[in-house]
């Protein structure tokens, strides 16, 4: 069973007056089949955690370790992490002009699976996945994220999640900027992937809203660059009622 183990992770970014530490010792274990919600106020470092796990060059790991089934993720390049089974659904997916969605998806699937998917099966697979996300087939001929609405971008991210079948899915604020219908469609997509039992999900979110659709096994409160409290789904209810105020104060006093 695939397991992602994050141990005492410290991460810095380059700021105007030298490196600034954002993650200050994160410990977390995510197993295949589990769903962990990472919740925290703006600026708590939860997106930094997501991007650091995917290997974004902006972030420098200064300490700790990340292992996927015992393999050192931090030693891997960005594409190697994806091939190893780490997937990051981005909050702000990037436009790639001139590259069609269908070409992009096939190139990505070929890279991640290690061989080109059989064309006929692939076309069927993409068509079904798009239909499930209520995406127009014409979407496949558009350029990646170019001119996409907020909802289209997030559906496109979840489409990739469904097609690339990672071991660990990190969903960075996938719920932000979505209306209720889009949130439901996107959540159903995530739940389809979760129901296979083959993915460990790290759901990074600011709001509790998405948790009405996706039931987490664990909820972690992120503040001041580390996990300050962990619990079950009931912790989300507490956050819903009380907000992050208590944690932010705690974070400020460090």
């Amino acid at each position, binding site marked *: 069973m695939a397991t992602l183990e994050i141990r005492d992770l410290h991460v810095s970014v380059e700021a105007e007056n030298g490196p600034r530490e954002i993650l200050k010792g994160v410990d977390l274990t995510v197993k295949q089949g589990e769903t962990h919600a990472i919740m925290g106020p703006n600026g708590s470092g939860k997106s930094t955690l997501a991007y650091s796990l995917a290997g974004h060059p902006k972030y420098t790991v200064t300490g700790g370790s990340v292992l996927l089934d015992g393999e050192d993720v931090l030693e891997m390049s*960005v594409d190697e992490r*994806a*091939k190893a089974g780490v997937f990051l659904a981005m909050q702000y997916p*990037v436009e790639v002009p001139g590259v069609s969605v269908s070409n*992009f998806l096939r*190139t*990505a699937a070929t*890279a991640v699976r290690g061989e080109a998917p059989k064309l006929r099966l692939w076309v069927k697979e993409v068509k079904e996945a798009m239909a499930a996300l209520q995406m127009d087939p014409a979407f496949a001929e558009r350029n990646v994220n170019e001119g996409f609405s907020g909802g289209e971008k997030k559906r496109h991210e979840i489409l990739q999640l469904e097609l690339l079948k990672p071991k660990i899915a990190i969903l960075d604020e996938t719920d932000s900027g979505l209306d209720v219908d889009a949130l439901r469609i996107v959540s159903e997509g995530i739940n389809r992937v979760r129901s296979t039992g083959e993915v460990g999900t790290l759901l990074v979110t600011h709001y509790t809203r998405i948790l009405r659709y996706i039931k987490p096994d664990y909820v972690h409160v992120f503040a001041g660059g580390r996990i300050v409290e962990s619990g079950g789904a009931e912790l989300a209810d507490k956050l819903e009622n009380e907000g992050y105020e208590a944690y932010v104060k705690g974070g400020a006093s460090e």
Partner: protein
Amino acid sequence: MAEQNTTGSTTAGSIEVGTAGAGAQLAGPGTGRTAVQQPIDARVAVKPSFDVNDFPVPHGREEDWRFTPLHRLGGLHDGTAAAAERGEDKVEFALPDGVTAETVGRDDARLGKAGTPVDRVAAQAFSAFEQALVVTVPKDAVLTEPVKIDVRAEGGVRFAHVVIDVKPFAEAVVVLNHVGTGTRAANVELLVGDGAKLTFVSVQDWERDAVHVAQHNALVGRDASFKSVVVTFGGDLVRLHPRVNYAGPGGEAELFGLYFADAGQHLEHRLIIDHDTPHCRSNVAYKGALQGQDAHAVWVGDVLIRAAALGTDTYELNRNLVLTDGARVDSIPNLEIETGEIVGAGHASATGRFDDEQLFYLMARGIPADEARRLVVRGFFAELLQQIGVAEVQEQLMEKIDAELEAAV
């Protein structure tokens, strides 16, 4: 103004039918000119001439020479190349049935009909060439295979003159392919007879140290269609000057270009479309990618709509994709309009870069860095390639692009 396009910069402009002020020269942001700048024909300092002695030696500050590193021209501009030892070209042809290729002397009456040299190097080429090549596609001939002219330059200096004469109602694709190295200056005349269709492809696949300067003069007949496809990959300095004139109404010209500048290369394309005849159309799309230190691309697109050119429809576009730091693009679209009675006129120029965020996004989906770059560049050029309309040429060019990326990434 828009002289050096920094990455991410965009200029665009358009003018609608009969818009107030359409008779005036466009000026201001996005037009690539300031109000005080001279009109296009006045900017060309010297009158066109076949005689090199009618042009002063350029010093580099002239409007039409200011981007060109003169010291890398191999003396084409100052007479030293003309005095140097001549080199050889090995030329091979593929001529479909009915098409003729002749080598003729300087006094052949068919030379010089499509246009006149507009700068000193073109005039030098005309003044110094020894024999010209005349390729004729007879009247009404509809070719199913392309005419191929493969030129392998074998060093030294050489001046060339080529005439492609497509007689009325004929249809032809002509591919002029350049490989090898040397210092070359040429004039290419493209005569497109009434009702004829010519697709002319000029590929500059030179070795890294070649110098190539050429003027392409197209004279588009009544109701004729001319398509120019200019593809520049190789050479140390390549400066091409495609020009279009119309011999009668109803003519159509499409000018497509694709270039890929690597470290240190200077690739310059200067176009002029002179609309002096009513009801003609023109469409320009040039796309370039750059990578490496001091890769330099220059694109100047001049479109002139003279008072007589009623019903003109024209659009020009230049896009550049900067793949690495250290590259430079100068992109200048110019549109000069002397009549408001036109269908449309517009231009756009944009220079963008393949950035780290795009790279990260693609890599985060398992795509390795070199493949990601290839994907983006292929996508960038694909749309343009599809417009060439000659499958064989399209495939070859895509392979060349892949090879360019393979070599440099």
